[in-house]
């Protein structure tokens, strides 16, 4: 049983309020990803859980135990840092074996060998076990660093942007691997990143961090489909959600207080029409889809081109909206009446 409970955690560094009243429960076997920009407090939170930093207020429980007085070594956590921190004078094997060699564990040699080899398979570095880590590529080093965390079976794994130093291709592969490994092991992981794709594809639940606070927590689908406010709405989805003032929409019948329409690309239908209110400014073919930037009433709107010949700059388009999200003047979500989901919205 390796549940993590954070209760009312706050942390200041002088004037800067790094974390404010963070309460969060990460269930046994859950993969929770905290998503936020640089400076949102992601790394500080992990360091508090690991015991590398002390909270001003609040408590951390790991496996039901208050760990306030436990030093990092006794907290039974593995930490993977953003930049691999390996022992440069050791081989891949020795680096992977290191956490198992701690005197207090007294693990037999054969067992160490077996665990190292199994982990090396998992992170696909088994063919280089005898290589000194200084001769590895950046991607290989990071795989060893992840492997070193996985070789033990701690109560929880803490990961601080472990994939961000890898190239796109390897990152995509390791995303899937990491998720698979997590499910195979039933591991409890708290993972922080600024990359929305990592959050969406790996997390059981995503916590959206803004300036030291958790604004919303939920499954990737909940966060994507029902964001609590415009800040959350903009964190997931590529291209980013279009936030448009209500002014040019037919407001009749909308919920009271709606000031902004949140329209993701899948909520907008685009058709060539010489009387349309939007003009194509830029067309970006990405291969599997084509992004079209339009301008309407001085507002930029990004859509995805329908199949067929791509539109050209200067072309006029009529836009039709449906199943959009509603936000009030403060940017907070306004729910549509349950009897009225997915209505069509006229845009002039």
């Amino acid at each position, binding site marked *: 049983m390796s549940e993590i409970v954070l209760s009312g955690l706050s942390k200041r560094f002088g004037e800067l309020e790094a974390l404010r009243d963070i309460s969060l429960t990460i269930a046994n076997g859950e993969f929770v990803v905290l998503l936020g920009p*640089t400076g949102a407090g992601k790394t500080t939170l992990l360091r508090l859980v690991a015991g590398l930093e002390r909270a001003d207020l609040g408590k951390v429980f790991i496996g039901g135990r208050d760990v306030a007085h436990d030093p990092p070594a006794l907290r039974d956590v593995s930490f993977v840092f953003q930049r691999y921190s390996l022992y440069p004078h050791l081989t891949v094997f020795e680096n992977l074996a290191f956490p198992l060699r701690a005197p207090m564990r007294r693990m037999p040699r054969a067992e160490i060998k077996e665990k190292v080899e199994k982990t090396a398979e998992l992170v696909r570095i088994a063919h280089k076990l005898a290589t000194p880590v200084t001769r590895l590529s950046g991607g290989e080093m990071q795989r060893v660093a992840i492997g070193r965390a996985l070789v033990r079976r701690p109560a929880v794994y803490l990961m601080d942007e472990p994939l961000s130093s890898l*190239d*796109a*291709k390897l990152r*995509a592969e390791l*995303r*899937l691997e990491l*998720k*698979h490994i997590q*499910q195979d092991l039933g591991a409890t992981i708290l993972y922080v990143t*600024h*990359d*929305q*794709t990592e959050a*969406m*594809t*790996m997390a059981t639940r995503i916590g959206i961090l803004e300036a030291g606070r958790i604004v919303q927590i939920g499954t*990737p*689908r909940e966060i*994507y489909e029902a964001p609590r406010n415009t800040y959350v709405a903009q964190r*997931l*989805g*590529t*291209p*980013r959600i279009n936030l448009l003032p209500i002014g040019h929409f037919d407001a009749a019948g909308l919920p009271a207080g709606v000031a902004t329409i949140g329209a*993701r*690309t*899948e909520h907008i239908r685009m058709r060539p029409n010489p009387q349309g209110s939007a003009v194509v*400014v*830029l*067309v*970006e*073919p*990405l*291969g*599997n889809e*084509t*992004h079209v*930037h339009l301008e309407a009433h001085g507002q930029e709107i990004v859509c995805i081109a329908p199949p067929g010949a*791509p539109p*050209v*700059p200067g072309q006029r388009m009529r836009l039709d909206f449906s199943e959009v999200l509603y936000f009030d003047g403060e940017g907070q979500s306004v729910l549509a009446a349950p009897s009225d989901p997915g209505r069509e919205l006229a845009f002039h």
Partner: protein
Amino acid sequence: MSEIRLEHVQKHFDDFAAVRDSSFTIANGDFFVLLGPSGCGKTTTLRMIAGLELPSGGKIFLDGEDVTDKKASERDIGFVFQLFALYPHLNVRENIAFPLRCQGVPRAEIKTRVAEVAKLLQIEHLLGRRIAGLSGGDSQRVALGRAIVRRAKAFMMDEPLGALDSEFRQLMCGELRRLHDRISATTVYVTHDQIEAMMMADRIAVMNHGIVDQIGTPREVYETPASLHVAGFIGSPPMNFLGFRGALAPGATSLELEGQPIAIPPLAEGVSERDLILGVRPENVALVSEGGLRGTVFGTEYMGTFQIVTVSTRWGPLKARVSSSLPVGVGSAVGLALTAEHIVLFDPATGRALPRRADAAQRATVLPGVAPGSPSSTAYV
């Protein structure tokens, strides 16, 4: 007008061939992207065009004039490295004016030109501001302004957005492209990021090991990759590859994978029995309950409107891009159906695609060493 032409350009560093026999033409006003992994020769090619590196062989023409032996300063080319590099002790106006002052341009003209550039980039209100207080986007615009204020014949950009996080990079891609549409100066842009290349380029040259594998519009390199390298480098996730052994007659419209018939686009020429590779992009793979290529779901990745499903098969892991409303259980058995018209076949011995009947003529224009003249290169800019 500023057309750039390379004829049999090569560059060796001792024993290492950084660029091998490259010939291509960059049309006036083109946004031309050199794309490839690190060490493929893209930056070396750019530096030779700019005059920062002398070719070991071949010729470079700028507007029809042979500039192969000319110094960088005599070529009238603007060079942009990382867009971040601004002078922190100068204000916005002084930063933009800097290259003109270095050239000894008269004060009055500097004033007019800086004002013009500021207007173009919509940063007029920032001219008196210090660099330190600017937002990331505004700093990028100032750096761009400093690059274009010189009105060079052509601009060379070497991974200018490399240091930015992905969300902001996409935003700047749009901005760069819009700027290009307004000033229409020939631009050569180097990157290892295929999304940047796809978003901005009129044409992309995909490089690997010092060789230009293919030159084409984003759509051409995506839909009809000329080599395994291009197919695997472009697209996210990249193209799926299935290895098999077989022979194909000219005009063949189907093949067999482990007894399963697969429709393919008709081939221009036949091939005798050999190892072959079938390539298909994830969005052209559908999940079916009965039939198809059988496999087991290894994992799913939720992406909002769609999901990427990875299926373990006897050909290795294959990816399908399907709607996220489709329920897919990890560990369940599924079939994969491939869309015939988007299948590309490759000969692994040469690494090249087998030409299809319809695009055989077009394919001839994109082989390395031949100047491409595809009329569709401006179709979607």
